């Protein structure tokens, strides 16, 4: 009985037993055609129409030949799950054939064979305290580089910790515990003069539909500790939060990203109606009803001195959207950039005036492999130049399988903005390829003509989901902090810093 119960759980449709497939095909259906092969359109047009409706038509080169069977099956499954019935599902074999015609046999990774760059020196900084496992977010306030300004979020253990550097020995102190924090925002939410932390908590490491995503407010107290206050529970997977006073009433409102799953999730604009007994009364409205929000940033993108909301949405959309503040509490949506292929795996964005023309440009990374467990040769770092019109002008500045985060700063102290980036791959993914195939940490040196020259700092480890440029050692140049995200979930008791030797 138990066996039956267990086997009865939801499962992926499986292959029909080979010895039965012929027999099943020969069973007549109601209209006399074979039952196993329901008549479905086989033309390229039919395939393109179906496979390019919910999202852009995937490029055939996005997956190796052997993978397309799975991808087409998944696409049809998701369409069926969506409860839409307005499209005609094409013939399965024809759809697979359509994509495999132009697909590579296997991915080919160029890899970089140049010697490692000598500008950075890797330093493992040991700390006392609970080990960390998978750092998802590193927060520091450049205006206050003193001790206590480094906040770490551990996606695995749920601990939000502070790395205290005030003594010679570094100490990691747990501030509070939540489930699976994806992002921490440091802000004085209640405007009491003490910094608080807002925590976007996914609620689960893996995508699931239990709706245990939460939004926490860690209210700072004068003694440096925090009170954890619930702002919202029961979201599907809360991925990011940022603060903005969009209604100009003097308090801070919020933008909250709920990554969701396939058919749920959204970006919310949360109006702060005021505090009652120390707890904010929040009014939630959907700003964008699409799931898949990776990141939200509050910046003045169009240079009108009003703060705009910029969102990076992955899943099948793979787009950066600007919600331009109209100054009257409303926003106008503009697409900043769209990667086009639903398999791109958008992973992060960073804002900086890269070309020195006074406005904000974007560095976009697409290297997420959590969806399909595949590092891809088209995982890249893009620079999106703001020329005052939408969409921004994009160019690829580096290929980097698994690239997860980029940060911007003047690394070589020559007056322009350079880029550093880290990648995140599993041990198994790395082991499937030759040593030296994947760069873990790189920096891109901007030249006077706006091009970027690649320097590899480290190869093959590929275990960072976030990075920051910061003068860690106080010598005047920017060091690179790359806290580790250990995919084996073993505890780590040191903190990875690449010290810049420029100065």
């Amino acid at each position, binding site marked *: 009985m138990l066996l039956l119960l267990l086997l009865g759980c939801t499962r992926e449709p499986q292959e029909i037993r080979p010895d039965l497939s012929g027999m099943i095909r020969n*069973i007549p259906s109601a209209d006399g055609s074979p039952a196993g092969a329901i008549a479905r359109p086989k033309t390229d047009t039919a395939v393109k129409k179906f496979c390019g409706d919910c999202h852009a038509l995937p490029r055939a080169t996005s997956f190796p030949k052997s993978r397309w069977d799975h991808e087409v099956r998944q696409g049809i499954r998701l369409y069926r*799950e969506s409860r839409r019935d307005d499209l005609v599902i094409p013939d399965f074999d024809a759809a697979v054939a359509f994509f495999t015609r132009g697909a590579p046999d296997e991915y080919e990774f160029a890899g970089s064979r140049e010697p490692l760059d000598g500008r950075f020196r890797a330093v493992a900084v040991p700390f006392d305290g609970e080990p960390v496992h998978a750092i998802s977010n590193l927060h520091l306030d450049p205006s206050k580089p003193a001790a206590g300004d480094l906040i770490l979020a551990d996606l695995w253990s749920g601990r939000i910790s502070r790395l205290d550097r005030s003594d010679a020995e570094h100490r990691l102190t747990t501030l509070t515990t*939540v489930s699976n924090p994806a992002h921490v925002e440091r802000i004085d939410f209640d405007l009491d003069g003490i910094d608080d932390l807002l925590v976007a908590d996914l*609620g689960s490491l893996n995508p699931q539909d239990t709706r245990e995503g939460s939004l926490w407010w860690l209210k700072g107290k004068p003694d440096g500790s925090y009170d954890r206050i619930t702002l919202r529970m029961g979201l599907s997977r809360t991925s990011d939060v940022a603060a903005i006073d969009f209604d100009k009433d003097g308090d801070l409102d919020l933008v909250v990203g709920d990554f969701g799953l396939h058919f749920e999730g959204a970006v919310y604009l949360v109006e702060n109606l005021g505090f009652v007994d120390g707890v904010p009364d929040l009014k939630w409205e959907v700003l964008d009803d699409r799931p898949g929000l990776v990141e939200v940033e509050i910046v003045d993108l169009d240079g009108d001195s009003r703060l705009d909301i910029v969102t990076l949405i992955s899943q099948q959309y793979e787009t950066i959207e600007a919600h331009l503040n109209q100054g009257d509490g409303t926003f106008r949506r503009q697409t900043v950039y769209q990667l086009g292929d639903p398999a791109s795996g958008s992973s992060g964005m960073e804002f900086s005036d890269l070309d020195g023309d006074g406005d904000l440009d974007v560095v976009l990374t697409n290297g997420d492999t959590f969806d399909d467990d595949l590092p891809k040769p088209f995982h890249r770092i893009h620079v999106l130049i703001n020329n005052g019109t939408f969409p921004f002008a994009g160019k690829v500045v580096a290929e980097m399988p698994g690239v997860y985060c980029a940060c911007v700063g003047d690394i070589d102290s020559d007056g322009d903005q350079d880029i550093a980036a880290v990648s995140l791959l599993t041990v198994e993914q790395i082991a499937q390829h030759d040593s030296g195939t994947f760069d873990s940490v790189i920096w891109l040196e901007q030249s006077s003509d706006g091009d970027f020259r690649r320097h590899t700092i480290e190869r093959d480890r590929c275990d960072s989901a976030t990075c920051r440029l910061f003068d860690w050692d106080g010598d005047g140049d920017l060091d690179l902090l790359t806290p580790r995200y250990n995919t084996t*979930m073993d505890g780590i008791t040191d903190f990875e810093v690449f010290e810049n030797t420029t100065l």
Partner: protein
Amino acid sequence: MPARKPNRKSRRPSTATTETGRVDHGRRRSRRRLVVLLGALLAVVVSAVHVGASRARRSDFEKAMQARRLVKAETLVDRPWWPFGSLADETVMRARLARLRGEDAAATAFLNFAESAGDAPRRIELERRLLAIQSGQVAASVDELSSLLQSHPDEGPIIFEAFVNINAASGRFDQALSLLTIWGEADPTSALVDMHRGEVLLAVDAYDAAVTAFRRSLARNEHVLRSRIGLTEALNQLQSSGEALQQARLVLAEDPTNITILNTAAGLLSGPDDGAERERLLRLMLAIDPDNYDATLSLGRLLCDRQEFPQAFEVLVKLESFHPLDASLNYLLAQAATGLGRQADAAKYLEQHFASKAEIDRLTKIKRSRSDDRRSLDDERTLALGFMKFEWKSAGPHLMRIQQAAGVDPEVSQAINKFSRQMN
């Protein structure tokens, strides 16, 4: 024959699930037949006691009574090709239903009783032969099939159905499909053939083909509920959610308390506008099965989503004694308590939620450290019992592996029972 007194117990509407998956609230005709049969059985036993009948005969009666509980009389209405006739006919019918359910001993008991009751020797003989094949005493050979079809030319559907079931039950799906092809050729308008074909195809995960078969069955006879249930299941497996839901609603219109389809439909109702219908189905499930942990949790989650925190708390708190450390339950209780402004309770539940999550992380790490086939029985035991406490649904595969390895001790056995109850 004693007077046919109404039996108070038999008057109570039955909510039993029948052979076709239908839940019947007691049809008058069937009830009358049941009363007749009970009366007859009672007469026999009284008589037997009075005349000092043999122990064997009394045993036959007890087995028959036991079988009666298993084989619901109401199913008779779903077998239109079986002409109701004498008491013996009906008893043979019960024997047949017992056989189809794999209750061989009960079937034998019914046949023994039918034999003593009267006048259906050919059908009794057929049933005995089919029972012998089902129990493996006689091979389910083509020769035996031919012989039965020759000796009982009017009972083709019964014979074919028996052979199809026997083959499918023993994993000989190819032979079952071949038999269905022959049966279909002999009876080209049969909705039953396609119903069975659909079920065999469902068993081999040929969902597209199963859908075709069930649809054809329903095109021939839209009242074959088992085909609609099968169609719902096949569409659900294909993740064809919209259509599966449509079919589930049709099943529930005819059979509103079918627990399997209620569960399927409640799972499919996940859209933003589905809340009211989902709540109705979950409450119906809980009315039938008040101990259904999963349905209770789902209802609590739904009420929390709707910010109906008092109702949510009321529903969820009932689960606390059953699974006090379950991470999801504690999260939902914290959510409901927060909504109710009961901050101290919320903090308590949240701390338990995080503590349970930490335990789940620890177990997950053990799980990931070795692949399924390389894990020791001790590890499986740790995982099974640990997950039962903190995330009970994840315990299933580990309990199964322990069971397969015959490593079941009392603690694991208790966990298996608990898991099974919750899944039910």
